[in-house]
């Protein structure tokens, strides 16, 4: 965790550089392990803010929460059965100089799938593994539900803040009022102090709740990672289908060439227009085709392996992810309940105290 600690030097500049390095690490992992649901990074910019909370990315609270998020990211990666063995990760953690160069040397950026290809695959692929399609659908749901929840929670927090702060006005007015009363004065005055305390208490309460929101956000971002694995499946499957299709058409061409009846081809037309080609030319073409077919068969074999391996490994990791998600989110919900209970206890305390003061009025 030294890497994280070192990155947290006071100057915000160094933090931003560090964040981009985390981004680089993650990009590398995503490309290198497309069958793994790679842990997400914490948000770069504050989102889902309720209005009193600072949306300023330089706000110390936000910076701190993001630091915690980055730490969490590393923990997840370092404890992942597959990712933890990665050499680049090791370099990142041991803070060797020239880490960036090492990453670039892997040439991972060239291996990255173009978005266009990926999108095309999604639309044109024919036979996808049902489990992956279900998982993809689930990832959409997860994303939509968590973001709705986060939005609603932020609005609730906003309103709750308003309620608490208005009570602070009681503090001021009671204090002024107590000045003109005799018997009621002391009771009013001290009740006013409790109202001030009540109003002030919301800041800590909501700050704590942000941690809960962060836990949910992690899984909001995880949804994207999950979807990426499913898309990779679509892509490998699509590429396999393309390769198979290509092989079939090449074989068909050879068939036609061998039997001498090319149905609908350019060569066939030129034959008709300019006369038959010479037998040597035909031989040359056949030979070329045979080579292409051999290549094609290799490609199909490779693609099949790639596809099957991806399915196998991805399925394992998606299971692992699901278990982790259920466990983590259940814990988060429990923690949320604990927070609510703590808030209720504070409320009971304040209003019991206020009641005591009113009794003295």
């Amino acid at each position, binding site marked *: 965790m030294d890497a994280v600690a070192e990155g947290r030097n006071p100057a915000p500049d160094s933090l931003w550089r560090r964040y981009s390095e985390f981004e680089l690490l993650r990009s590398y992992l995503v490309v290198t392990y497309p069958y793994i649901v790679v842990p997400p990074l914490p948000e770069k910019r504050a989102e889902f803010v309720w209005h009193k909370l600072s949306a300023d990315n330089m706000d110390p609270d936000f910076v701190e929460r993001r630091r915690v998020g980055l730490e969490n990211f590393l923990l997840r990666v370092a404890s992942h059965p597959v990712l933890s063995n990665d050499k680049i990760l090791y370099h990142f953690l041991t803070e060797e100089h020239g880490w960036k160069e090492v990453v670039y040397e892997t040439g991972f950026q060239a291996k990255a799938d173009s978005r266009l290809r990926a999108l095309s695959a999604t639309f044109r692929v024919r036979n996808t593994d049902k489990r992956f399609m279900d998982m993809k659908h689930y990832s959409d749901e997860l994303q939509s539900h968590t973001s709705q929840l986060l939005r609603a*929670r932020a609005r609730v927090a906003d*309103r709750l803040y308003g309620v608490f702060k208005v009570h602070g*006005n009681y503090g001021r007015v009671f204090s002024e009022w107590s000045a003109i009363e005799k018997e009621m004065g002391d009771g009013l005055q001290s009740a006013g102090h409790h109202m001030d305390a009540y109003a002030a208490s919301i800041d800590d309460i909501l700050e704590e709740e942000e941690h809960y929101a962060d836990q949910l956000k992690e899984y909001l971002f995880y949804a994207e990672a999950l979807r990426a694995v499913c898309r990779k499946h679509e892509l490998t499957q699509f590429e396999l289908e393309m390769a198979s299709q290509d092989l079939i058409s090449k074989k068909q061409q050879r068939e036609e060439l061998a039997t001498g009846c090319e149905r609908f081809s350019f060569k066939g037309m030129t034959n008709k227009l300019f006369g038959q080609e010479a037998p040597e030319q035909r031989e040359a073409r056949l030979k070329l085709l045979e080579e292409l077919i051999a290549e094609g068969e290799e490609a199909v074999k490779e693609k099949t392996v790639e596809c099957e391996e991806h399915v196998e490994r991805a399925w394992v990791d998606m299971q692992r992810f699901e278990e982790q998600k259920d466990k983590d989110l*259940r814990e988060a919900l429990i923690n949320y*309940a604990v927070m*609510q209970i703590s808030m*209720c206890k504070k409320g009971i305390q304040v209003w019991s105290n206020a009641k005591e003061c009113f009794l003295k009025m």
Partner: protein
Amino acid sequence: MSGQTVPADFSGHMLDLDEDEDLEVFSKNTSLADGSPMPNSPSSMVNQYRLEEDEEEEQQQDADTKDIFITVDNPESHVTAIETFIMYRVLTKTTRSEFDSSEYEVRRRYQDFLWLRSRLEENHPTLIVHPLPEKFVMKGMVERFNDDFIETRRKALHRFLNKISEHPILSYSQHFKVFLTAQELTSHKKQGPGFLSRMGETVRAVANSVRGLRNRPEEFTLMQEYVEDFSNKICSVDKVTQRIIKEQREYLDELKQYGPTYTQWAGSEEDLAEPLKGVARCVEGCSKETEEQIQHLSEVLVPALHEYVLCAETLKAVMRRRDNIQAEFEAKNEALASRKPENQEALQEEVDGLADRVELANNALKGDWSRWQKGMRTDLKSAFISTAEKNVDYYEKCLAVWESFLLSQRVEPSEQRDGEDVS
């Protein structure tokens, strides 16, 4: 007499009680189960808190010896060719000897209450007569009343009569007796100083206030200052409370949207569905409690504060009237001094009369002032205590909701494991 019950549906003519400052909302927890009157004096509420100060003891004795019980209930719509208004039933049970019977039932409308109060103020200009709920200011609507408005007004009228009945002087007023007992009030209303004479009084009062007061006794100056300050403070507390209710309502609205997001999410989960639904239930439970808390504020604290906002205005009026009485005396006294001794005798009697009047007025106010202060302290104290108690109750109930969720989560994992073993 039309026996129509108040129609339930006044849709389209909803009053916005929150915003209309001319409307005040009165209520004390005076739910009437079977129509029998419930003693609801401040002193009976003091009993609940077992205070041992002398002044409270004195009021306790009042409660024990209370000999007149009044209820206002059963609002009914009354339709004539000219107008529609609400009639309330006023039920009186008493053991007082001045009353021929021990039980009376009459029907009164808001105007009748206004009449009673103005009579009481006329006869006792420097006594503090409890205020009535305000007239409804029509916002260009034909049908004036919905159920909530009628109910709040009814509670306030009930409170008004009870406050009068507890007043050591006012409760023995002839007008009060007539109000409670006469089947037809119209004939009684016609008696007494007419409109013109009342106008004359007002003109004199204005003239006097323009003259200015020579030397107001110190204690009344202090009283005046207090009334000014109190009025400001009570208005502020009232505004803050209204604001809190507004914020709470908006919070409640968001809560109602928040809970379902957990339920919706649960729809696409398996193992996680149960805890998600659990949280949804908790949020729902807290929403209900919030609703109740808002209602409590509206029914207990807001009316009590409003009542004293009006009282502050009453106090200002009382102080003005006292000043006028003194001013009148001073004016005549000066006129007397500027006359030649031969002409003084006739005027002297009048001046003496006015001097007596001043002394009576001052003493009446002094006596009623301390009584009012005690009443104010008791009423507001109990309203604040009740609010604090409700808030504690609110948090306790929410706490229980979340704790039961935690409990369910502790039990589940082992149950889940058992379930898996079985399958």
